[in-house]
């Protein structure tokens, strides 16, 4: 059984008359201990997908369809009260900006302890001990002092560690990490990645890693999902997808990375911009920028298998199905 199983998740933005179809029929699943990377350029709907799974969409964002199953339980049918019990317990989420995710006027201790006590009937001092252990586990030195500190007294990297500690403190089955390393410099990025990787190994946590950095996905994820304009255009095991992309968009992303060509030579680029999604264009959403587009692309391409454990949403994939 997967830890998370999402089927046909669809999210609209704005009024019912002319909504933007920001996320369209996204399906994904994550197994225990697996890291799945969700990549794509800015605005492709990655964050919305993550928020929808955690049940954190607020107006004007609306989930208009799809099923979300966490550990066999259908979250989409749960009332908010029940959903709240799952959040921070079985399912946790961390966000991009470590400056903003912690409440600036509450001590670290308060924020950790309240997370424990929101879900488990634990005494204050027991919760505090757990918090201390957790800080230690995420690699914070002098955890006892840090507990008394306010967020602004910590460095960016430490803050992100604390946020991760708060997310993991109830041992969730699933961690949704929405670009938690983007705001940090390279050294810190690597440390955080290593930290989560270690935790996953120790506890078997499933991780949905949202990022726009293919490099991160490459080094860290088991599987990768590539999103474009609200749709998943390609999925598959990380190594294979990045090595031999099936979708032209994935190929373009890889070709644009400096280092993919000799220094001084031009990088591959794509013309144009992603389409507006209100309403989304007919047919293949990548059509307008696609070097391989043909007349047939006027129809919406189905998601098809492209080799073992791989899918692609394209009539003319770069990798032919076996």
């Amino acid at each position, binding site marked *: 059984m997967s830890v998370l199983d999402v089927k046909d998740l669809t999210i609209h933005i704005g009024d019912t008359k002319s909504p933007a179809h920001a996320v369209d029929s996204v399906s994904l699943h994550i197994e225990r201990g697996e890291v799945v990377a969700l990549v794509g350029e800015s605005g492709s709907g990655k964050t919305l997908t993550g928020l929808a799974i955690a049940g954190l969409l607020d107006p004007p964002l609306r989930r208009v369809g799809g099923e979300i199953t966490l550990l066999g339980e259908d979250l989409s049918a749960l009332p908010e009260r029940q959903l709240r019990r799952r959040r921070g317990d079985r399912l946790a989420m961390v966000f991009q900006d470590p400056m903003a995710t912690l409440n600036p006027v509450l001590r670290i201790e308060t924020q950790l302890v309240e997370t424990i006590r929101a879900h488990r009937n634990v005494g204050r001092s027991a919760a505090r001990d757990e918090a201390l252990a957790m800080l230690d586990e995420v690699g914070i030195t002098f955890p006892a002092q840090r507990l008394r500190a306010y967020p602004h007294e910590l460095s960016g990297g430490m803050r992100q560690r604390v946020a991760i500690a708060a997310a993991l403190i109830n041992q969730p089955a699933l961690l949704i990490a929405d670009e938690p390393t983007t705001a940090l410099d390279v050294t810190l990025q690597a440390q955080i990645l290593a930290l989560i990787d270690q935790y996953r190994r120790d506890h078997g946590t499933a991780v949905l890693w949202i990022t726009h950095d293919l*490099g991160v996905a490459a080094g860290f994820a088991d599987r990768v999902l590539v999103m474009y304009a609200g749709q998943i255009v390609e999925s598959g095991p990380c190594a294979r997808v990045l090595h031999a992309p099936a979708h032209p968009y994935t190929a373009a992303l890889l070709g644009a990375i400096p280092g993919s060509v000799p220094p001084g030579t031009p990088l591959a680029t794509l013309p144009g911009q992603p389409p507006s999604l209100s309403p989304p264009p007919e047919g293949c959403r990548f059509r307008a920028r696609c070097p391989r587009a043909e007349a047939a692309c006027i129809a919406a391409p189905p998601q098809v298998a492209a080799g073992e454990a791989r899918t692609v949403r394209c009539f003319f994939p770069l990798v032919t199905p076996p």
Partner: protein
Amino acid sequence: MNEPLFHARNISQSYILANGWRQRRSTLQALDDVSLALHAGEAVGIVGESGSGKSTLARIIAGLLPPTAGERFWQGQRLPDGPRDGIQMVFQDAASALNPRARVAELIAEAPRIHGLITGDESDFVATQLSRVGLDPQLAQRYPHQLSGGQRARVGIARALAVKPQLLVCDEAVAALDVLIQAQILNLLQQLRRELGLTLLFISHDLGVVRHLCERVVVMHHGRIVETAAAGQLVGLPQASLSRS
């Protein structure tokens, strides 16, 4: 060796921090005795972790920030404080680097007009500048918020080039962009270097980008230059994220 185009000598910069309640003042040494020479037509990259002083150095070179100590030379001449003709800069956050209340045409033409660099028709001038950075001249009447991120970055470059600089300082000019757009900009800079013989100082924390664009790389750490090397042979920088790919 011939005279460098630009030379910064023994630059130091310290910031005064007023800290907290007790108003304890401490100083932060952002740059410590940094010297850097740029030869005409050269592309030099600066890399370093966050807070290592890259932006501070860039601003001092551009003349936006008077250094606490040290001197700048332009073709051997000592430069007074303040900006100077011939040095321009492209900023990291293109959105904040463009006045949101000015149309693209005004953004590009304002300074050349004041400095008397426009000989013919102003709209032709703007069109030429826009085409040079690969933008549709139709965009001239738009406001910055009506442009995409990549377009904004290009307008920023076009504006800098419109006053015919010899040295272009790019402070993380591509850091906030998606890879696809980043690639466009990198290509554009390559092309401009070739065509205009521009000298480029390119600051980034992404070693891959610098390696792609520059011949020479300077590594900064804690306000000092710790290493200077040809782009291909760099070793000193901890490069966690890229090392695994």
